[in-house]
């Protein structure tokens, strides 16, 4: 059954990807990409990767698509025809693909429990992490403790992206004159938005702090919270949104999140442990792990929230500028 669903979804993905190649309408391309993300999120669910699916849906279908649409609004939605010969790219792709297919020939069979990938390191995570870390969600345990350094790096990547977008696009000036957003006149939209936004923020908080037990965590929570403000900005206009969450405040938040994360690691130094060793944070290692994970997830959450919202602000500020012109 799982295989069948998998196959169907993969087939749909293939069709989507092929459509993207040939479509010239970029708006449709981006929408198809959103679809592609959603479909792959479904595949991830089907393959038991619920955390990943959650993230892919929020990021791929959510943030990425919004950013791409924002870019299209500034750059135009039509891809111009060109007389490039596609022969060389095709050749490169065929060679690369052939190499990959060649590589699959010695791969362990799909889904087999005896595969080497499931033998060496993974069993310990599955068997020991509930005892060592005390969390039911193994993904969170691995993410935030065993491989916490990866996640610190990931937070730094998000921060770096925020720096990049900030330097490239700048930030909107807070409290500018509100230009009437086209969406603002829709009463239904406003009412629904007013209802949905608080719920979304609430949900974000739930995801943030429930990530230890179910799917979710700081990253997803940050994205969802950012989405709430983005929705607010889309419906009620950017100036109002920047009034609520000021761009400068976002800069502080983004930096603060990284500092909280790294600071947790440094705290371990002073308590006699290695960097990011949570065991020393409390007298009981399991409690220490729990404290550590909550703190760093919080750090991730606010950095991601601030970075994602900041990136959106950057794009929106550009759009605003273009509109004024």
């Amino acid at each position, binding site marked *: 059954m*799982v*295989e069948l669903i*998998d196959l169907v979804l*993969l087939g749909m*993905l*293939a069709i989507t*990807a092929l459509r*993207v*190649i040939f479509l010239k309408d*970029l708006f449709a*391309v981006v929408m198809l990409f959103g679809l592609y993300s959603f479909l*792959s999120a479904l595949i*991830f669910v089907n*393959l*038991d*990767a619920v955390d*990943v699916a959650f*993230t*892919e849906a929020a*990021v*791929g279908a959510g943030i*990425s698509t919004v*950013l*791409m649409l924002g870019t299209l609004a*500034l*750059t135009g939605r039509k*891809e*111009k025809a060109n007389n*490039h010969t*596609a022969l060389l*790219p095709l050749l*490169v*792709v065929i060679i*690369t693909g052939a190499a*990959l297919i060649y590589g*699959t020939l010695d*791969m362990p069979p*799909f*889904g*087999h*429990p005896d595969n080497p*990938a499931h033998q060496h*390191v*993974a069993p310990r*995570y*599955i068997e020991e992490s*509930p005892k060592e870390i005390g969390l039911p969600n*193994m*993904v969170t345990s*691995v*993410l935030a403790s065993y491989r916490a350094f990866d*996640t610190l790096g*990931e937070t730094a990547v*998000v921060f770096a*992206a925020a720096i*990049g*977008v900030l330097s*490239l*696009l700048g930030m909107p000036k807070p409290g500018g004159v509100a230009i009437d957003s086209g969406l603002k006149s829709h009463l239904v939209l406003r009412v629904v938005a007013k209802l949905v936004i608080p719920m979304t923020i609430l949900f974000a908080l739930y995801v943030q702090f429930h990530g230890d037990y179910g799917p979710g965590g700081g990253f997803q929570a940050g994205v969802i919270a950012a989405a709430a403000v983005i929705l607010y900005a889309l419906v009620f206009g950017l100036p109002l949104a920047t009034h609520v969450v000021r761009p400068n405040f976002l800069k502080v938040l983004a930096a603060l999140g990284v500092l909280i994360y790294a600071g947790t690691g440094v705290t371990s130094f002073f308590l006699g442990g290695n960097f990011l060793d949570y065991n020393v944070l409390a007298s009981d290692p399991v409690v220490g792990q729990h404290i550590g994970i909550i703190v760093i997830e919080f750090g991730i959450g606010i950095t991601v929230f601030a970075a994602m919202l900041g990136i959106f602000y950057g*794009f929106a500020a550009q759009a605003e500028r273009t509109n004024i012109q």
Partner: protein
Amino acid sequence: MSFIVDYYNYWIVVFLMMAGFYIVISANNLVKKIVGLNIFQTSVFMMYISIGKVQGGSAPIVADGITSYSNPLPHVLILTAIVVGVATTAVGLALVVRIKRAYGTVEENEFEDKDALI
């Protein structure tokens, strides 16, 4: 037959990767390049998640009565990779916006022509 059952997943994923890769290197429009990059990366993520799948397993969250879990490690890696992907996308798109402003176009051959004039 078992050969196909064992590998069909990887093969389709390879096809998807290559579709994305093709878009990246053949597209002339920069936005489309970024879309292609995303498709390429998302397909690679699928490969990882496929590695982590255990038949008959369930999501790696401890629950009563479940003995077999899928491998959580690839999930963690891909969570990280997705974030890295969106970060790259954001910076890439920001560059596209700036290129549009500086050149008035986001078609690769057109701004190459404009630079050639300098």
